[in-house]
């Protein structure tokens, strides 16, 4: 598997096939013993260059939205500079939540919370973003909007998006890996000529069908 720089790579698979384990390994969250294999990078270490976005927004309920966006400063023991505050506010404006900067997370809806999480991810300014089904808990319309927003704001980053939704993968991925078989192997999906975000046309519908077929869903 290769993750080309500054592009979106989607990793699709059924539940329990190990796609989350791959992502957690890259994020440095997996115990050493559970992993066999090699990770090669283009010289830079992974640690410290990775931002992580999970299915839950992971906003800390005791901090305001703004403080949540700037949580990295706290956790790394730095004081919050005015410069960074402005940057955080700018990001909140980009995700459409500037008015909510001083609110607490429990007053926001699921979609808004995930947008705050996106702002938090962006503020870290790390080149690699690992996303573990960050949109799966949202309703269809919110999910669609948030996919577009994330794609727009994460331009220029290397993104690995783990998902079980073929439509999401077809929409966003520069390349798509499908984990199939048992034990699962990741296969690169051919035929992705266009660049994302893709519209829902015939071609993408055919791609989705192909993916569903590969995932073993031909009887669905």
């Amino acid at each position: 598997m290769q993750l080309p720089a500054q592009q979106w790579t989607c990793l699709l698979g059924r539940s329990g096939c190990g796609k989350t384990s791959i992502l957690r390994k890259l994020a440095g969250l997996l115990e050493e013993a559970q992993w066999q294999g090699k990770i090669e990078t283009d010289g830079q270490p992974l640690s410290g260059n990775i931002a992580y976005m999970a299915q839950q927004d992971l906003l800390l309920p005791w901090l305001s939205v703004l403080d949540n966006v700037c949580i990295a400063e706290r956790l790394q023991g730095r004081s919050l500079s005015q410069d960074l505050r402005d940057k955080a506010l700018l990001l909140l404006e980009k995700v459409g939540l500037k008015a909510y900067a001083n609110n607490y997370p429990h007053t926001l809806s699921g979609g808004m919370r995930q947008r705050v999480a996106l702002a938090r991810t962006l503020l870290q300014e790390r080149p690699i973003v690992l996303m573990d089904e960050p949109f799966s808990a949202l309703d269809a319309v919110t999910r669609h909007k948030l996919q577009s927003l994330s794609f727009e704001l994460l331009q220029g980053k290397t993104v690995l998006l783990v998902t079980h939704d073929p439509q999401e993968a077809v929409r966003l991925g520069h390349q798509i890996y499908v984990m199939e078989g048992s034990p699962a192997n990741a296969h690169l999906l051919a035929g992705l000529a266009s660049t994302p975000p893709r519209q829902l046309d015939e071609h993408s519908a055919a791609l989705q069908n192909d993916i569903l077929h590969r995932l073993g869903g031909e009887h669905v």
Partner: protein
Amino acid sequence: MSNWLRGATASLVILGLWQGAILIWSLPSFILPAPIAVFEVLISRWPMLWSHTWVTAQEVLIGLALGVSIGLCFALLMLLFRPVKQWLLPILIASQAIPVFAIAPILMLWLDYGIASKVAMAAIIIFFPVTTCCFDGLRSTPLGYLDLAQTLNANRWRTLWHIQLPAALPALGSGLRVAVVVAPIGAVVGEWVGSSAGLGYLMLQANARMRIDEMFAALFILSLFSVALYFSVDWLLKRSLPWHSQ
């Protein structure tokens, strides 16, 4: 508002049943004094009652502060150092198996008749629920938060301070709610075993002199104090942990 109404109705019903029982069975005042007699004692002997209430209140509040701090420290120690947990937990559980009544005389002996021994009693009976609640809270930090801290390269202490401790606050709050109700029991038991002031002492003296109305007055103040303490702590917790009460 409806809460107040419900409380008032319940109090009135209890008072009615109380007065009714006296009328039906014509109970003498040294068995069960009438509510109005207790009220009269509350008014006429207020300065004396207040001085004893103040002593007990001090014992309870200092005991609470001490017990909660010790509980918090133990929970942190058990979280940070595994051997401490393995050695400390059995001792803590064993210490709870000893009735407080049994150690009260020893505490009198060691800490004297004054306020210190009652503070110790209150602290001893509350630190265990606080320790266990707080330890549970510290141990059950949502894994996602810890993942996030790790990807942000936070060290152990900052993770503890910025994530694990705040995440444990609701659990600590549950421990505190239990502690607030139980602490007055510790203080009064301490006063029964040996003291020269406090509501427990007053009840013992009133009982010996057959001043049952005075005893009921002391009992009334004690329950009022406990209830007020519980509801103010509950209110404070709800206010300071708004995400939890939702």
